[in-house]
């Protein structure tokens, strides 16, 4: 640990007035040595990215470091002028961000954007810059780099864009690479590739990496050392292996435990003879509407999808983005209309229902949505949001509001919550409200579309617990859509794996998870970060 590249000493960063707390980061000290990967772990709001932004000089307006120092190779970065700071950025410290979709300028070609790094530091001739850009693109493993260099960002996939970002960050061989949640927005298989790439590059260039993440799986995958943060303070700091295996702090333990493990819930006895939902040969093609002189384009979202689920059963639909899993869920609740095939709920074909009948039958299938911030009308009181369904279905207003209170009790928020507005609740609480709303109509089937994906792991665990609990109490039938096999394994009786609109594997949770048949399922499983560690500790 003699070769310290970066050293944070008692760093305190103040938030602007009116924020929910005074300091983003308070009295934080840690070192990053050359050649190591330091993982800074925390949930949203922990202040884990703030130190990185401070050392890059990229703090948002109104946020500033008020105490402590950030020493990089002997220099206190906080005391640098903007010009000095600028000369450091890109040259000695590179950075990649979470959202590859928005982190690249949509109007510039990839090559030009990489070239800019050299331009900013007056390196190379314009043609030399392009040649280097091509080399870099090759190094980060972009297919057809000659084409990619002339491409615009929108022409690349998310993983490819993240590779471009990495190429850009590495262009001048910086000593420190800051990676701010670089894989969070990616599919699990892509995530695995990017993690591999970063690890690989780090080893080859021998640079230090400060890797910011919320996912202990990722930590297990790549970290040399780890720093766990909570509400702006460090709760635990140490060698990665040590922390993972023997977490000292309660919070760290909670985080590690919150990662769904391989422990399978006991398979329940389900009466398979009376199927609640029967899906037969479902087809759905999305067409971009062509004009008079415009060709239309087609995407096969659902391709001959058939399965059945029994009453009281929980079925998981797992797949990466573009697999058609969400379309399937939306077809089941009839937010989309399938092109052909049948959806029999208790023998009634949902696909054939017309508007007015459909409106009346809707209560039988309800949905829990992904984004707790978008799924509640910001201008409707929580109680009303829950009662709206029953009211629309003819229940007396007073009665409906009273029942809404009961439901809020049931999901653990208390009846008093009914009078408040959604913005007064946290993400996890809102998801509880969403669940209460779905329950208000006593549906026969609930579709949960990525219901926990947007939540921090600890919250995720609580919501999964709630769902489990409700399943028992109310003997719910649940269609659980997720991209995360681990989550599915935890809560589902059966799992359906989808790829490109088709079902590639269908079986009991245990079977799919422990002895996958399809190659794609295996690929998915292997891509889960920290799997090796989980398996080891299991």
């Amino acid at each position, binding site marked *: 640990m003699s070769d310290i590249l970066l050293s944070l000493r008692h760093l305190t960063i103040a938030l602007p007035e*009116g924020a929910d707390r005074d300091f983003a980061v308070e009295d934080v000290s840690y070192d990053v040595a050359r050649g190591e990967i330091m993982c800074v772990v925390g949930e949203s709001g922990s202040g884990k990215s703030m130190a990185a932004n401070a050392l890059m000089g990229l703090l948002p*307006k*109104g946020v500033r470091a008020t105490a402590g120092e950030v020493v990089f190779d002997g220099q206190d970065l906080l005391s640098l002028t903007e010009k000095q700071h600028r000369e450091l950025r890109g040259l000695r410290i590179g950075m990649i961000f979470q959202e590859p979709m928005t982190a690249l300028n949509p109007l510039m070609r990839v090559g030009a954007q990489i070239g800019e790094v050299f331009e900013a530091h007056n390196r190379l001739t314009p043609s030399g810059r392009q040649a280097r850009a091509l080399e870099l693109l090759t190094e980060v493993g972009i297919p057809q780099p000659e084409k990619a260099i002339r491409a615009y960002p929108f022409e690349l996939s998310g993983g490819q864009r993240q590779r471009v970002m990495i190429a850009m960050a590495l262009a001048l061989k910086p000593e420190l690479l800051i990676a701010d949640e670089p894989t969070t927005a990616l599919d699990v298989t892509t995530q695995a590739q990017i993690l591999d790439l970063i690890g690989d590059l780090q080893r080859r260039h021998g640079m230090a990496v400060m890797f910011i993440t919320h996912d202990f799986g990722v930590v297990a995958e790549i970290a040399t050392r780890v720093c766990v943060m909570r509400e702006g303070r460090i709760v635990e700091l140490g060698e990665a292996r040590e922390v993972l295996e023997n977490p000292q702090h309660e919070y760290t333990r909670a985080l590690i435990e919150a990662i769904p493990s391989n422990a399978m819930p006991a398979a329940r006895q389900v009466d398979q003879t009376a199927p609640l939902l029967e899906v037969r040969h479902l087809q759905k093609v999305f067409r971009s509407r062509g004009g008079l002189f415009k060709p239309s384009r087609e995407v096969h979202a659902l391709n001959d999808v058939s399965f059945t689920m029994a009453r009281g059963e929980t079925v998981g639909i797992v797949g990466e983005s573009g697999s058609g899993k969400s379309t399937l869920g939306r077809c089941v*609740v009839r*937010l989309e209309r399938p092109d052909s095939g049948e959806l029999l709920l208790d023998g009634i074909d949902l696909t054939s229902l017309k508007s007015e009948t459909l*409106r*009346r039958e*809707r*209560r039988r*299938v*309800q*949905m829990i*949505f*992904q*984004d707790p911030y*978008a*799924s*509640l*009308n*910001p*201008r*409707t009181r929580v109680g009303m*949001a829950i009662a*709206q*369904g*029953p009211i*629309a*279905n003819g229940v007396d207003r007073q009665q409906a509001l009273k029942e809404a209170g009961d439901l809020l009790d049931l999901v653990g928020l208390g009846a008093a919550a009914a009078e408040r507005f959604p913005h007064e609740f946290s993400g996890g609480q809102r998801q509880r409200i*969403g669940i209460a*709303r779905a329950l*208000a*109509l006593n549906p026969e089937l609930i579709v949960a579309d990525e219901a926990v994906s947007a939540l921090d792991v600890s919250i995720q665990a609580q919501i999964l617990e709630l769902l489990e609990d409700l399943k028992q109490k109310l003997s719910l039938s649940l269609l659980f859509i997720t991209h995360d096999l681990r989550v599915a394994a935890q809560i589902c009786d059966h799992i359906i794996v989808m790829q490109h609109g088709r079902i590639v594997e269908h079986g009991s949770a245990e079977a799919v998870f422990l002895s996958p048949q399809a190659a794609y399922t295996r690929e998915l499983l292997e891509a889960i970060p920290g799997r090796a560690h989980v398996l080891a500790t299991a």
Partner: protein
Amino acid sequence: MNFFARFAQNRGALVGLIILLAIILMAILAPLLFPESPWRMVQRPFLPPLETEGFPLGTDTMGRNVAAGLMHGAWVSLLIGLVSTTVALAIGVPLGAIAGYYGGLVDDALMRFTEFFQTIPNFALAIVLVAIMQPSITSIVLAIAIVSWPPVARLVRAEFMSLRHREYVEAARLVGQTNATIILRQILPNTLSPIIVLASLMVATAILLESALSFLGLGDPNVMSWGYMIGAARTVIRQAWWLSFFPGVAILLTVLALNLVGEGLDDALNPKLARERS
């Protein structure tokens, strides 16, 4: 932070609000301070401002009190601005809402209709409409409304299009709410803030439009509006600068105030942007 605190953070908006309130006060006090008709010829024509007691802003070409005209005009200008904006909203909001909510062919048809109105230059259409209906308060208000609704429709449509796939809207559909309820209860309330901001700017534009129409001689001859005052004074702008100056300033201030208030509303209703801007 509450709404007003956020609004008041934008100092310009506060100034705008104060000016606007002053103008509204002028409009309210006009009949009390100047109970006589502003059309009454009460003094020698062309009295310059501040020279004769009781005529702080002088008299016009026919010896009418400019101060009285200005105060009575405040009422008319504000009224024209408000009513025409209301009418424009009454046309634009439902059209935009229906187009944005239903999409598809309905949207296509309504948007073609909207585009059609946007293809005829605004001001030209307003002139033709007033000329056809012959100038009166009603025709002017209608003409202004008819040329100013398309942006409303477009805005509301865009908002509806982005909101109709929001999860809470889909949730409302799932629980069986009717389309009408969803449009009115779920989506519309969430589009109000941009509509309010736009409306405040439309009032300003309407006042400008009315003055331009009056300038071309297409004002209502029975009401004293600022536009009329400038239009009537333009021929004597060389002899009596104050005749077009004061109403010109009044329009400027009102439009300015409305814009400032609009910005303030925008800030207050979209707190995220406000922090960047102020």
